[in-house]
């Protein structure tokens, strides 16, 4: 939708200051797009496709050639530039896709699940390129991914979209700390566990569950609150026998958010 491929059914959106329905041509000039498929036709040569894309963006013949050689060099593709794209390896094709997306030095670059099908080395390379683009040219990068570690590592702003609705929009750090750490405590008896649960409930923002002789507490800054809680519980005669603190991942954030929204939609249906 933001790349003008699909018209929105409702609402408005602006990319680089241009409306995606009223000013499509300007949006298309402003964005680079790396889709899930390959940008270069398989019967074509990488160099020809880069020059063609540059010409489509209105670069003169000379500039298109110069820009093409720069990009080929930057993505380590110069020696593969005159082979048919169908003969390139997956990693080489992906680098060519990104190079084509960057031909006119776009203000906004869309990367649609760019690391799907890449081996770990190429994935790290790609992440490095993305970081450099953002740091050196100030390119805004919109990255969609199912690898949430990738979003965590790269993104300054994480938006979670579920069934077409934005359900979260913040930095990865803020999203994670809002969900909080998971503190698991073990006790000598089930009675101890229930007594402890009542006490743990006093931690601000805590979400407490009791299982047999155990208590799990999900709370913002849970790792900071845990030592105090353990000391309190020992003083109250319900000593902790085992403890584990796990920091939240974006996966947890995602599951928590989408799980909640699933429950909400069930509630609406009922």
């Amino acid at each position, binding site marked *: 939708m933001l790349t003008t491929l699909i018209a929105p059914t409702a609402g408005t959106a602006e990319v680089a200051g241009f409306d995606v329905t009223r000013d499509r041509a300007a949006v298309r000039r402003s964005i680079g797009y790396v889709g899930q498929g390959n940008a270069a*036709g398989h019967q074509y040569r990488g160099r020809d496709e880069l020059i063609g894309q540059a010409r*489509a963006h209105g670069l003169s013949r000379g500039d298109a050639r110069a820009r093409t050689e720069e990009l080929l060099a930057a993505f380590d593709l110069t020696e593969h530039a005159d082979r048919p794209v169908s003969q390139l390896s997956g990693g080489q094709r992906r680098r060519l896709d990104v190079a*084509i997306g960057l031909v006119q030095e776009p203000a906004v670059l869309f990367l649609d699940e760019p690391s799907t099908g890449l081996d770990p080395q190429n994935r790290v390379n790609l992440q490095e390129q993305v970081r450099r683009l953002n740091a050196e040219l100030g*390119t805004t990068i919109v990255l969609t991914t199912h690898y949430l570690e990738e979003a965590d590592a790269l993104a300054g702003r994480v938006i979670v979209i579920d069934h077409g609705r934005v359900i979260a929009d913040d930095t990865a750090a803020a999203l994670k700390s809002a969900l909080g750490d998971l503190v698991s405590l073990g006790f000598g008896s089930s009675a101890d566990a229930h007594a402890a649960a009542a006490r743990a409930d006093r931690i601000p923002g805590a979400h407490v569950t009791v299982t047999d002789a155990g208590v799990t507490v999900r709370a913002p800054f849970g790792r900071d609150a845990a030592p105090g809680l353990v000391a309190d519980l020992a003083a109250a005669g319900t000593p902790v026998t085992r403890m584990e603190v796990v920091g939240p991942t974006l996966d947890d954030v995602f599951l928590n958010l989408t799980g909640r929204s699933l429950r909400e939609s069930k509630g609406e249906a009922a």
Partner: protein
Amino acid sequence: MTIEITSARDTAPATASVRRTAVASAPVGIVADIRNVFVRELMPVLRNPASVLFAMVQPLVFLALFAPLLPDTGTGSALQWFVPGIVSMTALMSASFTGANLSEEIISGSFERLLVSPVRRSALMIGKSLREMVPLVLQTLVIVVAVAPFAFDVHLAGIVGGILLLVPFSVGLGALSLALAVAAKDQAWVFWTVQQTAIFPLLLLAGVLLPLDGAPDWLQLMADLNPLHYIVDAERALFAGDYPVDTIAGGVTGSVVVGVLGLWVGVRAMNRAS
């Protein structure tokens, strides 16, 4: 819901270290747009010219095996009558194949990249269709050279006019073929089935292979509704060096109608492509 994505460039200073060539996307005129698409489409052939040699020979084979069966008509030689028909048939075939390569490009992803690029939808279709005319022009030259020693009068102006007459028709039919490929998506068999089903009635009802003079009324009526019929009649006049205004006007009308209709359908199909 409103999502706004603003450029970080407004706030972050751009460092010049990575860039040496000054690049900025600028609007491209429609003619340059068409030329860019045309040049891109031609690239695989330019890089591998041997791939078109077979296409060059095809109409010759057809001509060699079919023309001897035709009796000379009262008005002229069989070749004089048959060659313009073969040229029209070749245009019909190559234009209707325009979409064939698109399935591959849809599956690989390069078509999506073009849809997001600033290239106009109409330029995509016109450029791709015009590229299909390149072999047609070469094939026509090969045919004319091959038949010139026999009972065939070469009228150069008429041949050039005949090829120009086929341009709107080829663009329109090419656009329809692309629309069909877009609708068929990754199911290539849908494309081929529809294309084959459409091609033969068009061909037979245009009087390309056999004259329609003795046709029953219902067949005559269907032929009268076929734009290619008027184009073929005009081609025959042009190749013979005759320029009867009504026949040529009929051919031009038929060609332009297909061109406009095809582009209109094609652009709509592409806008709904994804």
